[in-house]
């Protein structure tokens, strides 16, 4: 089956996860469990007592005005940012730290790297490796990190490229791909590590409007297949259609969370209302 969205001719096949032989079932029902997270950038208090849980196969969309801490929060989830207090567990593992008598002590790089293998991340600006082809981008981490044999990795990489509609582009360098194509490669690259969780930070906001649909379509397919996802986005259509839960952040605080129906029909908080009125 193929999906045609926003008038694009991009074919997104079913079975994105089939291309990687499925992802391991998370050991716990709670994939993300963040409690009382506090984060400062110097004197700037960016996350204030943020708590958020994400269950297996759940899709959580994070909304909020610019500077509210959305990016910072999901970067904390794979420890690209340090936190000052609170706890973030992914699959039951405390991320980035060891808990020594109630105090956070930063973990060894090797341990953090191991934890990140289970957490895929898709960036606003793609961050593909420019010195590697589309296929090489995808197989790099499986080979270097997981120790997957090269031919196996290539087979998986090709399957992924086919599923995101880019079978013909395996030899292309990122500079030879459109933004939408680059972002689809980036999603495939993250998937190649068979993550239990995918983080998306405004994956379509650096794209020309006509390319947004093809990327959203891949993300929707992933959601349908049961990938656990946290998605920061301003694409309300995506949130309404795919989200199990919507979280509204403002000024480093989780202001409100609920189902899309609740959120878009009768938000309770003033700040949510005014934000939605601006964006819808």
């Amino acid at each position, binding site marked *: 089956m193929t999906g045609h969205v926003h008038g694009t001719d991009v074919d997104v096949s079913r079975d994105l996860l089939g291309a990687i032989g499925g992802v391991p079932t998370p050991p716990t029902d709670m994939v993300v469990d963040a409690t009382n997270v506090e984060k400062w950038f110097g004197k700037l208090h960016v996350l204030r007592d943020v708590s958020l849980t994400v269950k297996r196969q759940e899709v959580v969309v994070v909304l909020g005005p610019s500077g509210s801490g959305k990016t910072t929060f999901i970067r904390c989830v*794979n420890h*690209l940012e340090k936190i000052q207090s609170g706890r973030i567990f992914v699959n039951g593992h405390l991320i980035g730290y060891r808990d020594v008598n109630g105090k956070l002590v930063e973990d060894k*790089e*090797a341990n953090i*790297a*191991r934890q*990140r*293998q*289970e*957490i*895929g*991340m898709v*960036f606003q*600006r793609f*961050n*593909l*490796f*420019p*010195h590697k082809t589309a296929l090489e981008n995808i197989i*790099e*981490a499986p080979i*270097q*990190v*997981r120790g997957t044999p090269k031919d196996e990795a290539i087979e998986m990489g090709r399957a992924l490229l086919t599923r995101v509609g880019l079978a013909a582009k395996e030899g292309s*360098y990122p*500079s030879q791909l459109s933004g939408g194509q680059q972002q689809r490669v*980036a999603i495939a*690259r*993250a998937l190649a*590590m068979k993550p239990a969780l995918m983080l998306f930070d405004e994956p379509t906001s650096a794209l020309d409007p006509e390319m947004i649909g093809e990327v959203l379509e891949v993300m929707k397919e992933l959601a349908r297949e049961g990938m656990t996802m946290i998605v920061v986005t301003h694409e309300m259509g995506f949130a309404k259609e795919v989200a199990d839960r919507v979280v509204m952040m403002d000024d480093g605080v989780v202001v409100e969370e609920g189902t899309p129906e609740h959120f878009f029909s009768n938000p309770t908080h003033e700040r949510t209302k005014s934000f939605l009125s601006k964006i819808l």
Partner: protein
Amino acid sequence: MKFDPAEFLNFTFTWRDVLIGAIITTLLMAVVAQIIGVLLGLIAALAGRSRNPLVKAISVIYVWFFRGTPVLVQIYLLYFGLPYLLGIDPFPKQYGSLPELIGGGFVAVTLALGVNEGAYMSEIIRAGILSVDSGQAEAAKSLGMTPRKTMQRIVLPQALRVIVPPLGNEFNNMIKTTSLASVVGVTELVLLAQNRYGATFQPFEPLLGICVFYLAMTTIWGVIQGRIERRLGAGTRSEDVPGFWSRMTGAGRGRQGDTGGVR
């Protein structure tokens, strides 16, 4: 006008063992010192990014000292200072059965030039690493790559495009800086010329002669450097890579990376 063309031609174009030995000595010192410099520079650049403040401090002090003092003094410190401190001579005229060419002077100067070069290469490599978008390292880390793998597989290969042009200029300088070895009695090109005019009292002709050799070496290197840069720049805008003549003459080129001969 005293110029003696016969003496010039005789000195320059009569192939003889001392001349060949001097050319080999010059080239060997330059190549080995540059390799030492690149390796030390890489280590110092990485150490400079270390979380460990002591490791970082050592890197900073290393670069500070070797960029802040004359390389000639560094050669003297090593060649005269070390035997004095140790009470034994690590730089004898000849090492056992090794060829005489690779004697103590050669070793001391090559080491000193290499260690000195490492300080400059450290800065060049550091700038190269910084030129790579931080999103690259983040993407690599997010895929579970360790800092070491991230550096090795993602950051350094991309930094190379920024590192190689000034590295080429450094080697051009290195070829010329080996002339300092003459002060500790290494028979490279300058000492070869000095020996000649010490006997003939005609300084101009052999000095002009060794210029021919230096020019030959730096010119050939310029060609090789251009090839390497063009290959590294494949797929990017070609006007970024200076052509042969602008490289040789410096025309249309900023001063960036060109530290200009002996320092």
